[in-house]
């Protein structure tokens, strides 16, 4: 079974009902080209539930300065798609939590969509998040390929997404829905106001088939707790990149414990 599905099912068991999932995003090849493997191992060791490995891109439209800079730096030090797969070659010998790749569509297109999916399957990647591959084009052209390799494609919703479209996205999703916390690129908000909480609540009472995991603007224990009050889990990206900028691969344990002390 796909590890994402398995993880979500585990948390549905009654003894785990209250557990909220912590997912961490980082840019592959940052701060150093060969840190990818170490960072993943450290995150799992410290109890993180799921990891999103960022495939660096020259023009990340939906990202704020923190993730932009980490991508630029990773690319400058020679990161490529092929290199990422090489770094991850033996990852499943030691890591068992769900791993997703989050990246923009152009590098995947150049790699070859089918070839990319095949490599993901061989490596043990469970899902993909591709912000600029919209759900309509995905279902028309690429869904069959993703499914052939048992990859879950995760879609985003935002505070502006209409109820009708949320229902549509829910119907074609499998795994979870990535709920963008507010109208913003990554890394910009600090804490959540009433409007954001109302949006979280509005979605939580829609009784969607797929659980929601909230991302964008989650930076600390407080915002993690606020977000997960209404959702299955939350994703931290820019705040972790900042941690890596300051500490390299050190003190990952302290960072994770600072968010969720289990």
């Amino acid at each position, binding site marked *: 079974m796909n590890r994402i599905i398995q993880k979500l099912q585990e948390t549905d068991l009654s003894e785990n009902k209250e557990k909220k999932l912590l997912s961490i995003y980082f840019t592959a090849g940052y701060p150093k080209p060969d840190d990818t493997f170490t960072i993943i191992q450290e995150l799992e060791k410290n109890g993180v539930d799921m990891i999103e490995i960022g495939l660096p891109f*020259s023009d990340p439209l*939906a990202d704020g300065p923190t993730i932009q800079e980490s991508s630029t730096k990773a690319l400058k030090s020679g990161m490529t*798609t092929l290199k990422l797969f090489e770094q991850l070659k033996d990852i499943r010998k030691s890591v068992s939590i769900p791993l997703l790749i989050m990246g923009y569509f152009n*590098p995947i297109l*150049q790699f070859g969509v089918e070839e990319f999916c095949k490599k993901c399957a061989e490596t043990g990647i469970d899902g993909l998040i591709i912000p600029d591959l*919209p759900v309509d084009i995905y279902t028309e052209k690429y869904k069959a390929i993703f499914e052939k390799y048992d990859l879950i494609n995760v879609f985003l919703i*935002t505070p*502006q997404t209409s109820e009708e479209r949320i229902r549509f996205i829910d119907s074609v999703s499998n795994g979870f829905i990535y709920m963008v916390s507010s109208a913003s690129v990554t890394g910009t908000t600090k804490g959540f106001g009433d409007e954001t909480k109302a949006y979280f609540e509005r979605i939580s009472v829609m009784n969607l088939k797929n659980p929601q995991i909230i991302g964008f603007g989650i930076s600390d224990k407080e915002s993690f707790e606020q977000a997960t009050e209404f959702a299955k889990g939350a994703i931290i990206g820019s705040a972790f990149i900042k941690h890596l900028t300051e500490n390299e691969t050190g003190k990952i344990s302290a960072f994770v414990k600072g968010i969720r002390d289990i």
Partner: protein
Amino acid sequence: MTYQADEKGYYGDFGRAFIPEMLYPNVEKLRSKYLEIMKEASFRKEFDQLLKDYVGRPTPLYLAERLSEKYKTKIYLKREDLCHTGAHKINNTIGQILVAKRLGKNRVIAETGAGQHGVATATVCALMGIECVVYMGEVDIARQAPNVARMKLLGATVIPAKSGSKTLKDATNEAIRDWINNPVNTHYIIGSVVGPHPYPDMVARFQSVISEEVKTQLKEKEGRENPDYVVACVGGGSNAAGIYFHYLDNPEVGIIAVEAAGKGIFTGESAATSALGKEGIIHGSKTLLMQTADGQITEPYSISAGLDYPGIGPMHANLFRTGRAEFISVTDDAAMKAGQELARLEGIIPAIESAHALAIFKDRKFKEDEVVVVNLSGRGDKDLSTYIDYFNL
């Protein structure tokens, strides 16, 4: 077979909207409304009136006799340089500001390279009393200083784009991020036939007034609506789309697209997308773009800020792929010399972008009785400092 966009926004294999979900509500609203809005009688009336009384249309179709004599063919110049604000860009911004008003937006953002689109956007925002924010690469801010001052004088806020090559591509990224951050009150006026559907088609339709006028004007002057060729420079491709528009599906009219070769196509400092590009996604559109084998977008180069872009609009990618258009690339040097030549033979100082289109006559020969219409997309005032440096004036 048509070279226009289909209803999904495809030009052949190119186009469509590859956008993050954050942009979907705005882009979708625009897509579902733009044709309807453009058909409204009140819209047409306001648009036509402004083009006439404010922009100064129709722009002349001028027979450049001395240039024609030199190159032994009949060269007409479509004088978009005489538009208010100095380039064709304002045809589109007038159209889009009227759309923005009908969509109930009270804030407008734009990207700009040469600053012509930024000025044209700041101008229509001043005209309508709408807040205006323009993103411009730091490199371009330095080389197009007069246009930065014009935008500020018109009341716009100019925000420098400091990432990547600090030119048009990066300014566009910043504008898109702004739109993600301001999804409710803001309209994004894209300045060329690039970006997600419906932008390429909408911008092409607003610029199509250029070829609409050429048809009538040429009929008067030559007794026929169709020239043998239409020629334009291609940055993103909006002035080109405008002069091609009514001829796209007419095989009697040859289409010539001129790209910036920079210091030479294979020098690593070039913006000749058709020669160097591969199919991919840039700014929400599937098109040809300059990129590494790994799919990272590469940094282009041209002396002309308006052509310094690593992609071309999906319409042009399709014109290239199908062979409908002939693509020619022109170096910095050739363009600068063609600019000087037009100044000396015809008393017209062209924008360096437009000078690229004029530079083809040295090598591309036409028959003596052929009629070639070149889109003179803008005037050279903004480029004076580049001309001064280049020619030691």
